[in-house]
């Protein structure tokens, strides 16, 4: 295991979790050579840049935070309506609203310096070069522990089909980003594909250090009175508990297909869900939409997860990873 080139805050927190390990199960997980103090992360676009969440619970609770997708230039995003409520979930078409990479490194990343958690910077782009430019800019900022590549973006040069739908493109993007960003690179897969394992193999071939999945499903809502889509962008992404069973299946398929760590995302809303993702193969789990309904969820999930591990006599949370027994 490489040791993390981390700030004071980070190594302190590692000590804390190691000490805690004496009295309880070890919650830490190692991903791409970094040790996270626990497998609970928050998902890109569902935790901003961390500031608001920290008003509700101590950000240090988290193993990692994946910040909102950033692009080269600031983006205002789509006009309202950007969201709609669905059964056990929601639609969103925020339109990649973000401060742009410059303001991100100048104003947002410094806020995270004082915390002892992994910072994963989610990066989006509308063409190939944008991913490279943003990641190159992040390379000099060690507080950006890793980048996560949001490849569910419409690819202008492929006529709007998502980058993430073509394993060759995914391989190419990952390889290119690896060249400019010296720390781990984690492509985040789109579920809107026929065979997600094939995409994951493309990502691995490109040199991915880990793979996150899933992003949202392309979906739509309609107002029956106005006959208009509920979102200004017409289509948006479905997230929330509604998609969890699909996410679990995809996480397991990818876990079987590649040898790099898998990060599970999709509808996780309690500790049981986290355990399910880990049993299916996830090394860490990102909480997303569920944070909107339960902003202090990570605190509860961690305490419930710890209880579960104690009751099951697990020494380490890593014992769960990929422990599924197929029927």
């Amino acid at each position: 295991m490489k040791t993390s080139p981390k700030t004071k805050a980070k190594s302190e927190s590692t000590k804390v979790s190691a000490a805690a390990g004496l009295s309880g199960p070890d919650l830490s997980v190692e991903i791409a050579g970094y040790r996270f103090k626990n497998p609970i992360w928050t998902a890109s676009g569902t935790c901003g840049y961390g500031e608001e969440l920290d008003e509700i619970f101590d950000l240090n609770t988290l193993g990692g935070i994946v910040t909102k997708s950033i692009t080269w230039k600031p983006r205002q995003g789509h006009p309202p309506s950007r969201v709609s409520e669905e059964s056990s979930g929601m639609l969103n078409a925020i339109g990649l609203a973000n401060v742009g990479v410059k303001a991100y490194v100048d104003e947002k990343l410094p806020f995270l310096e004082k915390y002892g958690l992994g910072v994963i910077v989610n990066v989006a782009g509308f063409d190939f070069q944008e991913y490279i430019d943003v990641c190159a800019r992040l390379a000099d900022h060690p507080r950006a522990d890793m980048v996560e590549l949001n490849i569910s973006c419409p690819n202008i040069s492929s006529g709007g089909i998502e980058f993430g739908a073509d394993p060759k493109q995914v391989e190419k993007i990952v390889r290119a980003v690896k060249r400019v960003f010296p720390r781990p690179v984690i492509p985040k897969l789109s579920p809107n594909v026929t065979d997600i394992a094939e995409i994951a193999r493309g990502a691995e071939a490109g040199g991915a250090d880990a793979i996150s999945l899933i992003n949202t499903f392309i979906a739509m809502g309609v107002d029956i009175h106005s006959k208009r889509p509920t979102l200004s962008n017409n289509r948006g992404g479905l997230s929330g508990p509604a998609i969890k069973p699909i996410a679990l299946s995809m996480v397991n398929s990818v876990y079987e297909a590649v040898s790099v760590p898998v990060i599970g995302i999709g509808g996780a809303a309690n500790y049981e869900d986290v355990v399910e993702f880990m049993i299916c193969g996830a090394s860490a789990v990102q909480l997303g939409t569920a944070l909107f309904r339960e902003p202090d969820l990570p605190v509860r999930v961690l305490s419930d997860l710890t209880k579960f591990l104690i009751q099951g006599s697990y020494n380490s949370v890593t014992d769960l990873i990929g422990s599924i027994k197929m029927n």
Partner: protein
Amino acid sequence: MKRVVCQDSYLISRRDLKNGYLTLTFGPFSRSSSIKPGHFVHIDLPGSNLYFRRAFSVYSVNVKEKSIEIFLKVIGRGSRYLAQLKKGDRVNMLGPVGTPFKLPRKNQSALMVAGGVGLPPILFMTRWMIKRGRKPENIVFVYGGRSAEDIIERSIIKRLGVRFLPVTEDGSYGEKELVTAPLARSLSSGLLKDPVIYACGPESMLRAVDHLATEFETPGQLAFEAPMPCGFGICLGCVIPLRSGGFARVCREGPILPVGRVSWA
């Protein structure tokens, strides 16, 4: 201590008013002492199949009892669910959230404008101002609804000693006009000293108030609404467009925004 809490809270009491309006008092709410008018709470209904929380302006606070009261009308699924809660039933409260109203200066007069279910932050703010030394005679309270049935809590308002101007669309209570009519008369009368507008109500009303305020070059604060997935700024889902370009989050920069800020496009 964290600025915003997310805590289980229980129905302490309810007042069923006419026409589907009601108030609900919940406690404990540990941050009740930091609440100001314009703040809202974001309420989750455990066990229900509503996926978003629902936002409600704080209507009154009891700091000693650590409880808060909301005022609502049964409109759709969330409000119906809330309306059938029984004493002791549990909800989860996130709050206080949002940017509250700012007090007028001591010598300013206030033009309060409430449309329908926009009453709660306006009435709360009125009481708050009076408590903090603003003279009731310097406060005009315009309150509009479809009909007499929509003008709730009249005795409470009357007891405050403010200039109460109820209006209804059908003339069944007060003048038969929209809230903008008495507002325009008040502004054009020139009798109000250095007025500030405080308004909450349907979008069409806010837009009209915003235009009037701009026309009369009168400062004011408007309380906005939007569907809110998170209610505290992390999802960017609740935005409204600004005249300066870009967007404001209704839950964070809002729900209270100054007159002239929003782009009505």
